[in-house]
């Protein structure tokens, strides 16, 4: 196992290199010259000398390969550069945004794990019951409703309506923004903070929770019909022990894969949720930087997203061995 983990960690290096290099070259294929945006060329007739000076200032007059080399030399020193747009340090920006994204993602995943797995499990065990049918309808609806619609409806129901009807202060959730930014043990909201966190976390979790529930149900149904489950029943085990000890652990493997992938996605690509709730996270910032052709911000923030994604995938792979001891990580299959 340790050698497997080390090998996977070493694999991170080419993964990050290829992903960011691809992104670097892709940037130069996008329409629009970043220098035009830097000097405001979209709105005025700019002297060619000004454009040339801006190009030189940001090193954009160098050949692309030289820029590529310089970029990697800087990145290896963890110098992510400065925003083309306003000269702000990308390292600082990353520090702020990555933490915000991580907090939101953790809560979205917690909701996904608790609600998704529970609902899927009940739905599978009580197959064809009213609860199962309601769950099927509910999860289909939750997966189908676009995030921004859900976000605005939540804002109205839990923030606007309570305010207009003078609900107690604690019962009025917040429509948007990060809030006081007060946390305990990194991700537990303190004081007023939870009122800002609940709606974006719920919204972000909604679609993936529905998918996790659907997958949990399907996976559990399949496992419940497996031979070893019949064997467990014939041994006289209680239904609870059968489901929890034998069924759940096996059924969880595909669900854990989904949740792991989800975590990687929500941390860097929760663009719509972050937009609707003005949550200053990575996804919103990266999307905006693409619009502004702000290469240092795009690459700096994506670097972290790629690393987190790879690490989460590694954790998911490691978790397989825990869920199913038959899985031996790092061993080649025997034929």
């Amino acid at each position, binding site marked *: 196992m340790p050698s497997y983990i080390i090998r996977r960690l070493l694999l991170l290096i080419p993964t990050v290199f290829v992903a960011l290099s691809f992104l670097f070259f892709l940037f130069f294929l996008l329409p*629009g010259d970043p220098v035009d945006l830097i000097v405001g060329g979209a*709105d005025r007739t700019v002297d060619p000398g000004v454009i040339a000076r801006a190009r030189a200032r940001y090193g954009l007059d160098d050949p692309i390969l030289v820029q590529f080399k310089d970029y990697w030399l800087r990145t290896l020193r963890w110098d992510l550069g400065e925003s083309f747009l306003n000269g702000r340090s990308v390292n600082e920006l990353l520090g702020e945004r990555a933490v915000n994204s991580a907090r939101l993602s953790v809560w979205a995943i917690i909701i996904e794990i608790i609600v998704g797995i529970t609902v899927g499990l009940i739905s599978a065990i009580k197959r064809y019951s009213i609860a199962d049918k309601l769950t099927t309808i509910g999860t289909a609806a939750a997966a189908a409703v676009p995030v921004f619609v859900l976000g605005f*409806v939540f804002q109205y129901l839990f923030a606007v309506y309570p305010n207009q009807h003078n609900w107690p202060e604690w019962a009025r959730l917040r429509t*948007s923004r990060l809030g006081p930014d007060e946390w305990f043990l990194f991700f537990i909201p303190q004081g007023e903070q939870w009122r800002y966190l609940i709606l974006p976390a719920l919204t972000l979790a909604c679609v993936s929770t529905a998918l996790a529930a659907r997958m949990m149900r399907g996976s559990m149904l399949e496992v419940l019909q497996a031979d070893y489950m019949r064997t467990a029943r014939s041994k006289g085990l209680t239904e609870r022990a059968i489901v929890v000890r034998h069924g759940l652990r096996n059924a969880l493997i595909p669900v854990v894969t989904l949740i792991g992938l989800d975590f990687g996605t929500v941390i860097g690509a929760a663009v719509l949720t972050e937009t*609707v709730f*003005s949550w200053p996270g990575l996804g919103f910032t990266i*999307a905006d930087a693409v619009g502004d052709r702000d290469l240092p911000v795009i690459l700096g923030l994506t670097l972290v997203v790629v690393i987190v994604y790879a690490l989460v995938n590694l954790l998911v792979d490691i978790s397989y061995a825990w869920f199913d001891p038959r899985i031996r990580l790092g061993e080649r299959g025997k034929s």
Partner: protein
Amino acid sequence: MSRRRSFARLLAPLVALAMLAAACGGGDGGDDSATPGDDVGETQAGGELVDGGTFLGDPPEHIDPALNSTLDAYQVVNALYDGLTDIDASDPDNPKVRPHVAESFEANDDASEWTYKIKEGVTFSNGEEILPSTFQKSWERATNPDFAGDYSYLFNFIKGGKEKLDGKAQTIAGVKADDATRTLTVTLSAPYSNFDAVSGFQLFMPMPSEATSDPATFAAYENGLMIGNGPYKLEKPRTDQEIALVKSDTWAGDADGEKWEDRLDKITFQVTADADTSYNALGAGEVDTANIPPARVDDAESNWGTTLDVDILGSYHYFFNGRNPIVGGEKNKLLRQAISQAIDRDEINEAVYNGSRNVSTGITPPGIPGFAKGICEFCALDVKAAKKAFADWQAAGGKLAAPIPIQFNADNGHEPVAQILIDNLKEVGIQAVAQPFPSETYFSQLAEGACVICRAGWFADYPTYDNFMYDLFHGESLDGNNYGFQSEKFDKIVDEGKATVDKEKQAKLFQEAEKVLLNEEIGVLPINWYRGDYAYDKDKIAKFTQTNFGLILWEQVALAA
């Protein structure tokens, strides 16, 4: 001046959603709509206001007066800085330029040289006195070629401004500062009788010596604790989440010397990523002002105070690219006429903007000195005349090989307007097709010649006719703000108008130029003029005035007692 609404573009087209939310019901306020500035009830001194209506989408790119080019950030700049002159827009139809940091100003006979006498005792919030040389240094900073912002072309009006911007001179030859006599003398590159209005614009505002002394720190200055001379000062450096201003005790007062001592103690500009979220935040009591999404206009009028009744000096229009073979040139004039007469501008205003704008009868909006109503002969819907013009154009050999592209920046809410244009044109037999461009590169692509029929909008920087005629349509603006209109006759009249000191004669010249633009050349399709779009909590805010420039007079905002 543009209005930045960047990332909100993702959600802007979701009108149906906004309507759903609107249908859910509104606030619990009364139904009387407030008129800004009118019937102000009892007010209290000081207090705090949280603004959610100014920054939608992204945080402002710049709040440095030398760099900013958006109306949104001008709200902050205007609270932080005062310029040489100010516009008194209390009579919206007759705005007046008045000295502000300048005690007085005067031009020579042909308006080629302007002399400003700077007031004594006016200081920045750090106590530094503002002298004529302060302006000189600030303008040299703003024309530093490595730093200059989008609006720096305005320094071309001053003799030596272009050379300074191009890096060919160390100083601006036309600017002389004499601190002993408190005199600032500005020699222009060509006579310009409206320079008094221009010189009060944000680009020309004074900056303290800590901002002007080291070129290496110019760009980063706006990310720190900027020092200004306005009614408010920064409480702390801006963040991407908010900009907090507090009352400046050293403020010298407005153009009348009125200090508005009871003004707000603190204003916090919060950045909201989306207009609907901003509006919901107002409903949830989290902010005191919000932007009104078009689909929420009725709700806003019923439940909140609004500035919807303020006619903003801004135009929404479509350019015809005069250099484009499909629609440009003399031979396609009848086609352009047919298109202009086929457009149902009322339908656009009702269907897309919920009636929250004014239908245009020209490009230059009411409120600009010299404005004349109904200048455009072809801006009223006349399907019969449009069909005839199109038939005449075809009879003269005109032929469309493919549908005409109707171009706009994607995801900014312009799609419904383009669709109505396409439907209207279809009515008269003209085939057209929507051609959205990526928002980020839209205007630079237009400037590079991509325009055929392309959308644009413009907010006045200062209340002058030439701010529309010169900046948008003059040959010198070609490939800048002008996306293809070319007319020597027009340019000549505008140049003459700019140099004319007699205001009546000047107005007639600019009207004549606009007639050339709209009726002789048919170089642009006026669509509508903007109106205010702030909603505010009228139970909390007793006075909230938006000028027709779109600027909120923050020093005059007062909370209800």
